[in-house]
């Protein structure tokens, strides 16, 4: 909408730049799969560090880390997506993303096996996520893109970290 | 370039005045603020201004006392004081004039009214200088 209206009123460098950065995706791997998230949503990428576990949370929520004085939760995406759990290596990193929470912005760390590159994937090159035939749509999958013949799964990071999908199973009783 | 002192216990009212001054075509220098007469006298001791706008009703030292006290300051007695008040009665005007106020503007005022009063006052003051 916004972009359209800008286009009709002529060229606008800022808008183009904005569109460009919206197309930029960070590609990272979880096991053998490659995923992409919008660079715009990423605050920083840090190395793996000591995670303080929080009791009574599902296994994919590893706990909390100290990000320069801020306590933020850390999620293991391999476990979250029920892929083969990966050992943490020197390549393992935490992608800190900024997402919407109930009380404003929240920061969440996502553990990835490693980041590979930043790719510009135009909106037009993104295909709808395939219907896996089980009648179970994956809301956090924004679509897929083929780059150099390889498939990248693009994530809607806000959907991935919606609180209701992260909340721990209540073990009490 | 005219330096101005605004004396009013209400910060919002001081802002109104500032805003109104900015809307005029006057060449405004620095604008000082004081919360009451006493505060104003203290500020004036450190720095002279060209015009003073003062409220009447203020705690600690009100406008009437302030005008009187200002007249006692040898170095500052010639600074014209324009009273800004909601009271537009003739008696009040006369009273403040008798105490030494040079101008009188009733609240609420328009930027134009403000400018007119200042212009009138400045040229009068210049005449007195002669």
């Amino acid at each position, binding site marked *: 909408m916004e972009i359209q209206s800008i286009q009709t009123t002529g060229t606008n460098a800022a808008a183009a730049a904005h569109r460009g950065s919206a197309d930029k995706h960070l590609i990272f791997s979880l096991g053998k799969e490659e995923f992409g998230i919008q660079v715009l949503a990423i605050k920083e990428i840090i190395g793996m560090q000591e995670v303080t576990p929080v*009791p009574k949370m599902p296994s994919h929520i590893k706990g909390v880390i100290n990000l320069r004085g801020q306590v933020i939760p850390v999620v293991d995406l391999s476990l979250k997506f029920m892929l083969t759990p990966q050992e943490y290596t020197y390549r393992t990193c935490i992608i800190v993303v900024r997402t919407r929470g109930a009380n404003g912005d929240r920061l969440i760390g996502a553990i990835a096996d490693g980041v590979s590159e930043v790719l510009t994937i135009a909106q037009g090159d993104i295909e709808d996520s395939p219907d896996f035939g089980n009648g179970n749509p994956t809301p956090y999958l924004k679509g897929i893109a083929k780059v150099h013949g390889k498939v990248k799964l693009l994530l809607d990071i806000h959907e991935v970290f919606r609180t209701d999908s992260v909340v721990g199973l209540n073990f009490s009783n | 370039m005219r330096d101005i002192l605004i004396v009013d216990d209400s910060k919002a009212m001081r802002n109104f005045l500032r805003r109104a001054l900015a809307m005029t075509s006057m060449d405004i220098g620095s604008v000082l603020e004081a919360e009451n007469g006493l505060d104003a006298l203290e500020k004036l001791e450190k720095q002279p201004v060209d015009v003073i706008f003062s409220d009447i*009703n203020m705690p600690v030292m009100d406008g009437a006392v302030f005008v009187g006290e200002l007249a006692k300051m040898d170095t500052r007695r010639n600074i014209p004081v324009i009273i800004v008040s909601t009271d537009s009665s003739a008696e009040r005007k006369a009273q403040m004039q008798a105490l030494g106020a040079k101008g009188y503007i009733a609240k609420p005022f328009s930027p134009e009214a403000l400018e007119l009063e200042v212009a009138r006052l400045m040229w009068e003051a210049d005449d007195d200088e002669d």
Partner: protein
Amino acid sequence: MLQAVDDLALQVMLKGAAAFRSKAMASILEVARKTSPADFVVEMERLVKLAKAKTLTDEDARNGASALQAILAPPPAPPVPEPAAPVPFEEDAELLNDFVLEAEEHLTSIEERILQLEKDPSLTEAIHAVFRSFHSIKGLAGFLGLDGVQAVAHEVETLLDHARNARVSVDSAIVDLVLEAAEYLKDEVAAVQARLSGSLPPVIRNNVSLLASVRSVNEEVQSGRRAVATAAAAEAATVVAVVAPVAEPVAPVVDTAVTTADVSESSFHEEEEVVAFTLDQEEEDQAAATAIAAQPAVPVEVVKAAPAPVAVVAAPKAVPAPAPSQQEPMRVEVASTSVRVETSKLDRLMDMVGEMVIAQSILMNLSRASANVETRMAGELAQLARITTEVQRCAMSMRMMPIGPLFQKNAKMVRDLSRRNGKKVNLELAGESTELDKTIAEELADPLLHMIRNALDHGIEPPQERLAVGKSEMATLKISAEHEAGQIVVSISDDGRGLNPDKIRNKALERGLIDENQHLSEQEIFHLIFAPGFSTAEKITDISGRGVGMDVVRQHVEHLRGRILIESELGKGTTFYIHLPLTLAIIEGLVIVVGDHRYIIPLFSVREMCRPTEDMLFTVQGQDEMILMRGSLLPLVRLHRRFYIEPKSETITDGLLVVCEFAGKRFCLFVDDLLGRQEVVIKSLDEAFKSVRGLAGSAILGDGRIGLILDVAGIFSQNGFEGLAA
């Protein structure tokens, strides 16, 4: 510059050559030397010089002025640009915001002062302050086109002007009017604020009857009829009248006055202009005179009579009021020079200061650990520690505010409520300047309100009942605040019935909150009144409701990490002490360890610690574990079982017992070991963890690692012991 020259040209037209002699020339020249073309400066200097020497003719002056204009604006001269269309004041968000903030301050002060005045009408400086507040609001409203505000503030200002000139004494009817006006203004201000924030504005009630009431009092005062009624009205403390009753024969006049007021009010709105209220004193007098003249029974001369001296007699303590011009400074108020800062910024500052404290303590530990640190460095580190502590204190103090306004908010309620209940209450406030964290003050408002209502409803007896037991008719309710051992203690104390432990116990048994053979200390019995659904009230009033208030109180106070203590003596009265932390940002905690995990237990919920022996452990009904400690049995909670984590050992004698307390209940928490005691900055946990009971937040420990802060109440009532927990 062009503007200045145009001004000059205009003056030359009016005054001729003399215009060049004016003082303003010096400054114009000064600016011209810097900014204007050389020929302009030369011409200008020539003219000024001639003028000074009085050799400049008016004709030359006029020509000179046009020449100057021409230099600056070569023909065809562009028209002097009109100043951009100014934003009308009433649409200027910044000014509106200023108004809202200031009006709110004034309204708070009005309530506070007017209630003081009701108690002691001789407080002249309070009258002046209230007068000034209405005056300021009126002045500001004038700019913003807030006609309703202006109208009401104007009438009340007139009324208070009479009061400060001792033409009328402030009785409860006037207090009512002023409070009603303040309520109205509050709504108006809220409406402005709503407009600013784009939210739904509150419904503003009609101000016609309010205006009419104030006006009719004003007219009574002006005509000298008010004074007599005053004394009578002041006596009747329980009268809930908007306007004090007026003596019989005058009543019809009041009606006439009200009608007049109505008419002017409506015309005021139609014309959207300040017509009705620019009437000066004389005209108003005249209006009143006309109204009274319509009544043949009252001679017109009465109106002209000097303000009745009765008003002064009615208030014997009244100090002769000062002259209207206030030649003497009334009261040297220390002008508060303050800056408004967003709380979010303060929070961030507190956060960063917290980090700094930790970084500093890490540095200290490092320097202590390494043997060969230079003494000079150690000295500098100690200096850093002192500075850090000071910065921390300073940052904390920025969040502090006095508790006074909170008390004042309740003062009005006490007044309304005691009247409505037909009780006579003298409210005493103490320690109003005690400062506490802004957030705590805000969160304390509700619990305080409930507790005061509770005291008024249940604690304090009706006058007859008090007289019957030999107490004075007038009850005393005391609300105070003080600092005590790094905490704030707010107490609410009444000299009413007192709590009856037997009655509370029976009621709790009836409600199934406790069982027959449960042994409870007096404190525990008192605390039953905070249990959900408990109410000792025999009569349910619309104010206290059905016992919902008190359990909300406990929740709130515990949420603030505070606790309540009750002292009560049957027949003598009750005192509630609310102990609160100074700040919510920092707590003292015990760092404990269970397996690989470290947790922080807030020190305020820890009573004692001990290494248990085998014989202290008992098992009730084969499952619930209890600890026998100095004769009392306390439930045992093993933290590792609550959190499903691996402990170092299950054996009771290998670990440590921490006796925790909340809501007057105690239990033992079994942990592996104690690591130490530490002051920590509380960080809230992400919303992902909100479902985890037993966690209050997190903190960064001295080594940079995170410790989770335990919520003792949440851990205890998580499962198992719910039945015991009242």
